[in-house]
């Protein structure tokens, strides 16, 4: 589904503090699989993930989504692909403070200009699936860690993306909540989603339900 072909990424290119975060990665991510990018911090897994999720572009190399080259597309198209294809769960959850749970979940759909009532119902239904409907009108800063995470998952799913991207999703959770999260991921895979997760948490990469573990070190794939 996603192919990376000798992807490299440099930060501060051409300046004295130039730094190559990714030094040539070739990788295939198959549809309807759970793929974990594993490695110590600074190994480049988050950078790689952000390029897969169209949040940034590689310095060189190609990224293909369903055989379509993404790396050369202009910003507008990238945003559109990102909106339609990917759902994001961030390490800090990155919920927008001051807004309610419901508003946060609906946020990725705002630029689509859908009718309000169906969108609200869809968001409430999603929240219902995660036992969050009672919290729909509370502000996100009052949520517990687990609730915040389930809100973040609902937000990632509101536009019904094919691919779910999660960056260190369990970093702020205890073991019980981390296991709960992995169970949710497994359910989503059964619903047909493709999931890509970065983590250095054993709860994640030792979880039984995952399909592929890719280990990274210093911007390269570590040979298994």
């Amino acid at each position, binding site marked *: 589904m996603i192919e990376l072909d000798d992807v490299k990424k440099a930060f501060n290119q051409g300046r004295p503090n130039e730094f190559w975060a990714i030094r040539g990665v070739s990788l295939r991510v198959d549809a309807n699989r759970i793929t974990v990018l594993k490695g110590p911090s600074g190994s480049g897994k988050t950078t790689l993930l952000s390029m897969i999720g169209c949040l940034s572009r590689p310095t060189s190399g190609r990224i293909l989504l369903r055989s379509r080259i993404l790396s050369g597309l202009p910003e507008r198209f990238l*945003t559109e692909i990102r909106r339609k294809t990917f759902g994001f769960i961030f390490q800090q959850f990155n919920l927008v403070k001051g807004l309610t749970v419901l508003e946060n979940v609906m*946020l990725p759909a705002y630029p689509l200009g859908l009718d309000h009532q169906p969108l609200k119902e869809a968001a409430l239904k999603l929240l219902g699936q995660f036992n969050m409907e009672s919290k729909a009108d509370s502000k996100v800063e009052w949520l517990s860690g687990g609730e915040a995470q389930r809100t973040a998952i609902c937000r990632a799913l509101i536009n019904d993306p094919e691919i779910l991207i999660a960056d260190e999703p369990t970093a702020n959770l205890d073991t019980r909540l981390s296991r709960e999260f992995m169970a949710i991921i497994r359910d989503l895979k059964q619903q047909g989603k493709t999931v890509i997760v970065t983590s250095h948490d054993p709860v994640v990469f030792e979880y039984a339900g995952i399909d592929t573990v890719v280990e990274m070190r210093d911007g390269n794939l570590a040979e298994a």
Partner: protein
Amino acid sequence: MKKLILRQKYLIDFTLSSLKRRLAKNLGLLLVYTLIVFLLASVMLFTHSLRREAGIILESSPEIILQRLVAGRHDLMPAEYLDRIGRIRGVTRKAGRLWGYFYDPAVQANYTLMVPRDRDLGQQEVVIGAGIARTRGVDVGDFLTFRSSDGRAFSFRVVDILEADAELVNADLLLVSEGTYRDFFGIPADRFTDIVLQVRNPSEVRKVAEKLTVLLPDARPILREEILRTYDSIFSWRQGIVFVLLGGSILAFVIFAWDKASGLSAEEKREIGILKAIGWETSDVIRMKFWEGSIVSLTAFLLGFILAYLHVFYGQAALFEPVLKGWAVIYPSFNPTPFVDGLQVATLFFFTVFPYTVATIIPIWQASITDPDAVMR
């Protein structure tokens, strides 16, 4: 099309939600903003309406007034000047006017004494303006006593009070008969204050004025068009201390608003990153900020203008009274006639809404073109 509108509505939803987060701060901003629009609009509405009204009612002033100047000072006009003017083509009527000022120590007010041409008043009769009636607390039938220039006490019976509706022009008027006037001030029978000339054809007024200056070198003609021009330029609302004072507060507000609108806090930057990461386009972010600027400034404009309208045209412009009144004891009580100039309102709209909106958009432009992966770092 429908999609576009729905989309803007979502953006407005988001903007309002984020404004609501810092409710006290944003309400404070709105309040100050509204206050400034209110003051600007009040000055504008008040001065414009006075200017229009002055233009309309002073259209009935005499065409030409002839003053005599002696050593650069306004002096009494000898009656023989009326004969020296003789017959000038176009002048249909000429007459001497008698008027002057009287300082009333009882209330420390200045009155304008005048001899009316259309009323026959008895020796001890006086007609007063509503402003005097209010200040002295007198009514028809009451008596007023003044000390004349040579120290005699004159007692007048108030026989009439000029229409309160016309206080804008008659507040401090005190009408007496010609005999009383001359006696009171000790002005000889062959002297007038000045001369009025009536000219039927407006195109001849300038010609007449030229002839008068040749004929009477020590006289100065004042034309009606000059009076009108004076009043037209006098309420030039951009001028004056009100605007100097306002200037300071406007500047303070501009700094405050600029800081508020243009400075993006780290939190806001992060938020923009989140929005972009979850699929908002740069243009969505900019539009959202555009709505924020427009909503705040439009609300301030609408509230400020409506309040200013009520203040000026229903509240007698009460806030300006101290400035207009100054040291004067007699101040006309009047509700300005609501002449509203659409162009002025549009100008005010433009200068209050536009800059603020731009100030909110500019910094967002810089922030929103940064890469969305910032949130992942």
